[in-house]
């Protein structure tokens, strides 16, 4: 049943792999950023689209991955093969602690608590100058030489994002994914069928945070620096917009939203400085007339994954 999605991931990866052949460094940088945000947005959709819980603090895990990987790479001079998984594990542990409290609440309260924890992570990053560099940011993040050129880093990012997207697809199509949908549709109903709903919610929260941290680790290496604003609530809002714009009811919706927002944003900013106002209008039109987002235009509908 999910073979078309599997083929779509491999086909998209094959097309994306052609980008460096264009010889344009600009395009390579642009698509590196797109790939990173595809993963970031899809990780958030595990919570929003599948579990039905809106997080306003997802950037916290993105930043934790970014800072974690950067600190392990530069401060502790660990190899990338240790630093990146290390950052993911650390984020997973923190997401488990934060998630333990968050999944006890639902709806608006869940959203507000994730926002509060997100801002708490931002405050720690901002104030812990000796470790994170504070508001000066954490600079001179050096990726290994073998991914030192824009093209090689792009291909590395493509490989990591493709593997992560495959893993997310497997998760969403597994019994766990079906339980997430069941809980989204009716938590009480899932409960009297023996599903430990809170535990499943916590697992999804940790998984979403871990995949966001992978995107964050790539983001830090891509920019060779990372700043506290990557944990700021506006970063959470941006990825939330990608999910809504692309369509939260489809596996590929957030990826489409990430592509659309970044590409359209770049093009528009070259024409006018009123991009944020235009984005607001696009969002309003999307919410009123295309509730299933861009993916909805291609026939994806609620609940179909």
């Amino acid at each position, binding site marked *: 049943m999910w073979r078309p999605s599997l083929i779509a991931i491999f086909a998209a990866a094959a097309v994306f792999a052609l980008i460096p052949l264009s010889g344009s460094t600009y395009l390579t940088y642009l698509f590196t950023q797109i790939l990173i945000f595809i993963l970031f947005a899809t990780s958030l959709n595990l919570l929003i689209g599948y579990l039905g819980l809106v997080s306003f603090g997802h950037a916290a895990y993105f930043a934790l991955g970014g800072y974690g990987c950067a600190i392990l790479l530069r401060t502790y001079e660990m190899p990338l093969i240790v630093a990146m998984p290390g950052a993911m594990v650390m984020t997973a542990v923190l997401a488990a602690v934060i998630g333990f409290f968050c999944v006890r609440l639902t709806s608006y309260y869940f959203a507000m608590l994730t926002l509060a924890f997100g801002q708490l992570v931002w405050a720690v990053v901002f104030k812990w100058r000796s470790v994170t560099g504070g508001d000066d940011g954490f600079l001179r993040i050096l990726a290994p030489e073998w991914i030192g050129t824009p093209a090689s880093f792009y291909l590395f990012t493509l490989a990591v994002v493709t593997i992560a997207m495959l893993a997310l697809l497997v998760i969403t199509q597994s*019994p766990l994914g*079906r*339980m997430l*949908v*069941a809980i989204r*549709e*009716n938590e*009480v*109903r*899932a*409960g*009297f*069928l*023996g*599903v*430990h*709903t809170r535990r499943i919610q916590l697992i999804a929260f940790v998984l979403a945070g871990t995949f966001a941290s992978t995107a964050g680790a790539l983001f830090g290496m891509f920019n060779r620096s990372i700043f506290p604003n990557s944990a700021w609530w506006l970063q959470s809002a941006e990825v939330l917009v990608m999910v809504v714009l692309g369509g939260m009811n489809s596996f590929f919706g957030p990826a489409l939203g990430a592509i659309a927002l970044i590409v359209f944003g770049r093009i528009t900013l070259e024409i006018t400085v009123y991009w944020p106002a235009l984005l607001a209008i696009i969002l309003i039109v999307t919410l009123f007339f295309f509730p299933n987002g861009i993916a909805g235009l291609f026939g994806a509908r*609620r*609940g*179909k994954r």
Partner: protein
Amino acid sequence: MADLPIDLKVETISTFYGLSQILFELSFEVGRSEVVALVGRNGVGKTTTMRSIAGLTRPRSGRVLWAGEDIVGLAPHRIARLGIGYVPEDRRIFPELTVWENLDVVWRSPDSDWTEERVFDIFPDLAELRGRDGGHLSGGQQQMLTIARTLMTGPKLLLLDEPSEGLAPLAVERMVDRIKALKEEGLSMVLAEQNTDVVLALSDRMHVVEKGVIRATLSPEEVREDENRLTSYLML
């Protein structure tokens, strides 16, 4: 089926919704492989009794003993895992999941011998519809799926809340037929029902519930001899 002692004892439970008391020290028992019906008009407390047993509404006092253990206060998922399956009255399937996904999504007891094949043997209609979205099934098919889904958790006792409600007569007949098959499998059941024919066809014993208490206990034979005995309580 595993040979676990199956014995439900509801002991003087009082359940409230806010300040409104719905059940007043209600008590009854269900023996192994027994089908006990709770009959009564709307609003007398049948569903509240079911919800109190399933852990969805906690009784303020009294005990619900399952295999000797008081299960009051346990979370619904823990009660389900102990072997009590709840089939709610409004056919609460997951409409956006297919028939197969609805069956697959539940927690499964490791010692349960309820497999998809066995469930499809009991409900052959569902086997033909396994790829169809739950929301696109008829009322009767949804009711079958609700029961089938609960069977996948490996229950020893089924709480069936108004299974005939809103179904066409032919669908009711098919549903009764399937529940009889489950009874023959040895499942214990508590059946909340208003349809006298369904109650007579399925139950070993019936308790008439009125204003949150059990007013009378009748056997199917007593009712068949004189149906007025039941209808007088139900004021039909």
